[in-house]
């Protein structure tokens, strides 16, 4: 019965709901189509972000980039003997670029390569690391014993002659700061959400909500500045650790940025639990706190969980705070060591990376991984919230 009604209403309203009278009023019809097309821009943008961030990283994903310092050199005298395709690959040209060039230019390009090979310092010529393509997945993910190191290690060091691109320290750095931030922010924000939505008088809410909005309005560069100048020294005097700027300070500062999002989503979830739940619990003799903790919170748990997931997405994507507070790339799980997150690395190193080079492409690769992580966590959070709302609405009926 209900289904039949729904399909009927669909028929009358038509495609996109803007079917009516398109013959009678062509202008209106065009305007409505235009509105529909513009509304698709959000989808287009998400798609374009994915496409164009990944596009710059494609050579890395496909293993087409070669960052080896010492590469095979073909003497320029052999220009005419080489097959065209092999020559194109050797010079790293595209098909159209290749077509535009005459023999002379090609020859000079080959000579440039020869010259460049001659200029490599002698110490690297015999180094086994110099002929490694460091952008291969093996070197991106697994530890490797570089010359001069006593054991295999994870190293991100895109400077000097041999660029080392192991991304594991960056992931550890991101996770470290994010987890500290969440450990700090989640109890605080959820506690406040319980208080504001369940225990306090409504007037408290009128004060706290704008306050939280104000907190979320503080630009992250200002939070970073505050952490760098004030908080770092303050926390050091309390905890007495050695490095003044470390993952701990960055994590707490990240927490400031995460509190508003966790608070508002979990507060939303807690308020959307029907008041009848609380009233029933109170009527059965529970205290306000017992009703909040044992009845409302379990009912709102999916929403609170979603808040944490979305807070995670916010924290792992935060750039300026971590960039200002700590930036040394060290592989360590200790929270009192410095850490360099993925976002920080991109922000700090993009300026010095040559456009189109392997460093540049590796940074874009990091960006697309970060995008994938936040995309998934946002989707997960969104799905949980939707399900939670539907469940509550189902119970209400």
């Amino acid at each position, binding site marked *: 019965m209900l289904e039949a009604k729904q399909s009927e209403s669909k028929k009358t309203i038509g495609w996109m709901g803007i079917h009516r009278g398109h013959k009678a009023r062509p202008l209106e019809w065009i305007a409505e189509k235009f509105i529909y097309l*513009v*509304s698709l821009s959000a989808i287009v943008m998400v798609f374009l*972000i994915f496409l164009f961030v990944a596009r710059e990283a494609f050579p890395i994903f496909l293993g087409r980039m070669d960052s080896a310092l010492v590469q095979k050199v073909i003497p320029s005298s052999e220009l005419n003997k080489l097959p065209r395709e092999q020559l194109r690959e050797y010079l790293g040209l595209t098909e159209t670029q290749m077509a535009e060039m005459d023999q002379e230019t090609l020859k000079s390009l080959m000579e440039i390569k020869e010259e460049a090979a001659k200029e490599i310092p002698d110490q690297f010529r015999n180094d086994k690391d110099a002929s490694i393509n460091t952008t291969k997945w093996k070197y991106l993910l697994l530890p490797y014993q570089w010359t001069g190191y006593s054991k295999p290690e994870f190293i991100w060091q895109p400077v000097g002659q041999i660029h080392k691109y192991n991304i594991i320290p960056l992931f550890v750095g991101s996770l470290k700061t994010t987890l500290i931030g969440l450990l700090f922010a989640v109890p605080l924000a959820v506690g406040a959400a319980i208080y504001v939505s369940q225990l306090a008088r409504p007037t408290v809410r009128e004060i*706290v909500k704008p306050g939280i909005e*104000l907190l979320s309005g503080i630009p992250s560069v200002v939070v970073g*500045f505050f952490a760098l100048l004030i908080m770092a020294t303050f926390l050091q005097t309390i905890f007495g650790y050695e490095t003044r700027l470390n993952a701990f300070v960055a994590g707490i500062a990240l927490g400031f940025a995460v509190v508003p999002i966790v608070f508002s989503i979990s507060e939303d979830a807690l308020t959307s639990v029907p008041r009848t739940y609380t009233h029933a619990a109170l009527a059965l*003799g529970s205290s306000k706190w017992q009703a909040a903790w044992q009845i409302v919170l379990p009912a709102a748990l999916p929403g609170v969980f979603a808040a944490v997931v979305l807070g995670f997405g916010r924290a792992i994507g935060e750039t300026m705070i971590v960039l200002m507070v700590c930036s040394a790339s060290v592989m360590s799980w200790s929270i009192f060591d410095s850490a360099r997150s993925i976002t920080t690395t991109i922000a700090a190193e993009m300026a010095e990376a040559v456009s189109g080079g392997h460093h540049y492409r590796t940074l874009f690769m990091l960006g697309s991984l970060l995008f994938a992580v936040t*995309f998934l966590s946002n989707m997960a959070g969104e799905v949980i919230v939707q399900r939670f709302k539907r469940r509550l609405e189902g119970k209400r009926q």
Partner: protein
Amino acid sequence: MNAPSSLARTPGRHFRSERFDFGSFFFSGLTGLATVLILAILAVILGNILINGWSGLSWRFVSTIPKKDFFDPETTGVLPMIIGTAFRVFVMTIFVIPIGVITAIYLTEYAHTAALSTRIIRGAVNNLAGVPSIVFGLFGLGFFINFIGKNMDAILKSAGPTWSQPAVIWASLTLAVMTLPVVIVATEESLKAIPPGLREASLALGATKLETIIRIVLPQALPGIMTGGILAVSRAAGEVAPILFTGVAYYMASLPKSLTDQFMDLGYHVYVLSTQSPNIEQTRPILYATVLVLLLLTFALNFVAILIRAHVRKKLRALN
């Protein structure tokens, strides 16, 4: 005869909530403490900046274009940064407000809530809101500068890279993509707050749907649209990560004059002053003053937006 009074005196007969429950008291207090702590953090950050920044703030500071060495407290100023930030944010609103408002109109006035396309649009909007700001920066570099800009240079046959380099226009467009969800959500909220009776009355009088939207719905939704715009502006004004690769300059001797110029920026200047200063003790006063200018700018905007939104929400609550 005296049974009722003895009944009242027996402690066991009381409701539990009337007894002192230590656990409840303790944990309620804990959550209250969490609330107070959050507000205290806010107060400390704002108070610290206000107290330390106020003394450095002067008309000269706000209206001076600094010489090359902007770390010197005597001669420095933040005029180019204020103008740069205002410029990029203004250009952003030109793009983001029409697109955001039209999307919101589609979502509230035309779309089926259950339709697949609507759900995908909503999902995309929510996802866009969660994309890390640095990824927007990469997107601006990869799409606007390296793709659109390069092709524009090729098509317009410009001498040297004109469009395919960091510029105000690219930073603004990047920010417009970033703040699109802010405008959409705020506009939608205000559209929903308009009583359906108004639309029905207009339709009943023979207006078409589009006429109803333009003449009746949009004027009513104007405060909400303004809120969305203001929130987007205040969010964008403080963002640094998306403009790092798309337009901001460390130093410029002159103010930006065209859309293809680079610009100096308040937020980026805060970053530069706090991390690159040769003598942090000497730069501290101007750093605080710069932060205060940035905060005043974003908060003044935020405050107005909160006021308008509270008004809209009250209307919405009265409706339900």
